[in-house]
Each structure stands twice: as structure tokens, then as C-alpha cells.
């Protein structure tokens, strides 16, 4: 077993893991943060997307030991008062609700984390529908389609202060 210490959603966490433990397994099974989902387990679907040092990554294709000493944000940590037990949504989460950007909801945590990555990359320029569609290529929805999701990302970005065409 290897001891790892990392910061998850602003809180110092640690645990003993086997080197072969995936980061998503550590989050879900060791820390109980089950908002991060395992869809395909083959780095294609993006349901396991989290932020590692501020960048969206697929936590099913990272070893927990690789995250030792790093800063992580999961879906549980994006809302401003989530760590204090508040139930206010982040503007991007609220936009997914408003735009019906989900049906079953399985892909939604990963979609939101990827959406926040898109906002971060384009916060100083103008976001378009084409950019959102292209940059969501690492996330799959298998319910109904992407129109509501794209609408939600655009609304969420706008409400976060990004210029949207």
C-alpha cells in the first residue's frame, strides 16, 4: 500500500491505496465522493471527468498515486457553499437544470466539469455554440442528444460572465 495525500474540493484528504487503484475508485470508494461516475472505464465517455490542478481529466485513466500532492475538484466541490452543506447550485449546474441539459443524469457530473473547463479556456474570448459542441467531444450522453447540454453550457458560461455569441 502507498500513502497518498491530496487536496479534494479544498480539503486535505489522505488514504492508503494500492498503486493500481484508479483515481476514480479512490474518490468513490475511499472518500465516498460518488458524484464522479464510471461510465465506460475506457477513457471515452467522460462521466468520470474531474479537475486536476484546474484542468479537466478523466479520473478512470489516472492512478490514485499519480494524484498524490495534487489539487482536485469533483462535482461535489463546484457549488460555492457545497462544503458548508449549502444546497445552492453553481451557475453551470443551475443552467443544466434550467435548460433540461440532462435526462438520466449519469453523464451530467462529467458534462459540468468539462463545461467548466470550456469556460476556463474561453473566459477571455467569445464562446460560440460551435466551440461548445467541439470541445464536448470527450463526453458522451446516451439518453437523448446534446441540444439541451449545449444550451446549458452556453447559458452557464454567460451567467459566469463569459461573452457568448
Amino acid at each position, binding site marked *: 500500500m*502507498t500513502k497518498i495525500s491530496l487536496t479534494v474540493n479544498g480539503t486535505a484528504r489522505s488514504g492508503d491505496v*494500492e*498503486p*493500481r487503484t*484508479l483515481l476514480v475508485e479512490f474518490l468513490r470508494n475511499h472518500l465516498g465522493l460518488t458524484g464522479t461516475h464510471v461510465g465506460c*472505464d*475506457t*477513457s*471515452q465517455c*467522460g462521466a468520470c*471527468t474531474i479537475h*486536476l490542478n484546474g*484542468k*479537466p*481529466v*478523466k479520473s478512470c*485513466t*489516472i*492512478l490514485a*498515486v*499519480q494524484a498524490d500532492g495534487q489539487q482536485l475538484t469533483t462535482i461535489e466541490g463546484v457549488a460555492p457553499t457545497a462544503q458548508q452543506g449549502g444546497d445552492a447550485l453553481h451557475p453551470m449546474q443551475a443552467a443544466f437544470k434550467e435548460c433540461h441539459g440532462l435526462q438520466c443524469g449519469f453523464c451530467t457530473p462529467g458534462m459540468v466539469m*468539462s463545461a467548466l*473547463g*470550456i469556460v476556463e*479556456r474561453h473566459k477571455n474570448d467569445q464562446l460560440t455554440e460551435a466551440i461548445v459542441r467541439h*470541445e464536448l*467531444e*470527450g*463526453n458522451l450522453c446516451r439518453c437523448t442528444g446534446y441540444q439541451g447540454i449545449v444550451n446549458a453550457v452556453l447559458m452557464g458560461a454567460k451567467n459566469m460572465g463569459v461573452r457568448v455569441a
Partner: protein
Amino acid sequence: MHAFTYHRPTSVADAVAKRSADDDASYLAGGMTLIPTLKQRLAQPTQVFDLAGLADLKGIVVTDGAVTIGAMTCHADVALSADVRRVIPALSDLAGTIGDPQVRNRGTIGGSLANCDPSADYPAAVLGLGATIHTNTRQISGDDFFKGLFETALKPGELIVKVSFPISKRAAYMKFPNPASRYAVVGVMVAENAQGVRVAVTGAGACAFRLSAMETALSKSFSVAAIKDIAVPADDLNNDMHATAEYRAHLVGVMARRAVAAIA
């Protein structure tokens, strides 16, 4: 996944020494290929040496004649680098077509080249732009690096440190991506630099290769017309569930013409 031990070497020399002492050990770069391979139990390393902590393997340096990229630089950093975009936009474009944003935040140029997947994008850049691969012991010309299916000129334990791309006069990369994985069914880099015109193909063969017939034709006349009648033989090309060898041969011509059209 089989069990292994995990280590973080403190320097390139430390990594090479420890990896070289164990034939069954493996380096870990971004892990975008190694970890899926481990999950499928297609590899069973005894020890894994994570290179992520080695700061001297990271970074992009642009000088008068070349762009030099550290082996552990991720695809997103290459794709989004204003410096790379300014001097070799085709290299930015290529890096920006690898996988998806999440994969580009982890996968590295050194890992991609050492793995030598027949459908990876970077081999077309190395071969097409005439890059040089710097390892811990030597420099390897891109022309001598790719040896076959997942096979390179690297010796056991030899570690890619950085890759140096000469700044081309003009270059374009065109790719027909697999719609699910974004790996290249076929990708073609066409470039003109001080040494002449180069045309490099990935996705179509066992490893990346150059098309001398097109290079000769484009050297005489850099135009779509110059290569439109050059047939690409399908004999040794990949034939799998994604595309037949004949279809890949056809795509090589299409992608080459699109690349030339973009910069002619």
C-alpha cells in the same frame, strides 16, 4: 489490473538507472495508453516509474530555428501555446486534434512517440516536419526513429527527453479521424522546410512513413495538381474494422491534397 510497485524518480539519470535495471519495468508518462493497457492486462510491469515529477522534461522553447518540446509536455500545452501557433501552426493544429480535451490534458509528446501507435498523430509531425528526438544518450533523426508497429529506435530503458522541430516555411496536417477515438484512420503532414518538401503519413501503415513520390512532385510544383494523379499502393497498409487498406490508400491521397491546398 495486475499489481506493480510505483516509483517517482528524482531525476532523468535516476529514472534511467532504475528502469534499465529491470527489464520488466515501465516508464509512465501521461498514461493515456499505458493505463488502458494495464486495465486490459496486456502489460504486466513489475515496477512503474512515473516521470511526472521531472520538471526538466517539461516545457516549450522557441528559438530562431526550432521549437523544442519537453517529452512530458502535454498535448494541450502544445495545442494552446501562442509560441507554437506563431511559428509552426500545423503543429498546434495537430496537437489539438489528439483525443479530446481531457486526454490532451494528460497525454504527452514523449509518451506518444515512445509508444509508436500506428494511428497516433505525433509521428506524422516528427517525420513530416523533420524533427530530431533527443534521448538521455543521443539524438535520433525522425527519419530513423519509427521502426514498425509499436516499435521505435529506442533501446530498452532509453528515455526521450525532448523533441526539436525545425521551423518550416509552410506546413499543414490533415486527418481523417476515427469518429469515436479521434485516432487517425489516416493523417498526412505536408511541410516545406530548408531541406525541401516532406510528406508524412500516419494511421495507414505499421508506423508513420514518407511518400517520396509526392515529395518529388511537390518539389517541382507545390500544387494540388502535381499530386492528384499519384496513386498510393494499398499493399502494405493497415486493414481492420475501421477501414480497408484500399480505403486508407484513397484517404492518403485525399488528406495529402487537402494539406497541400491549405498552404499552396
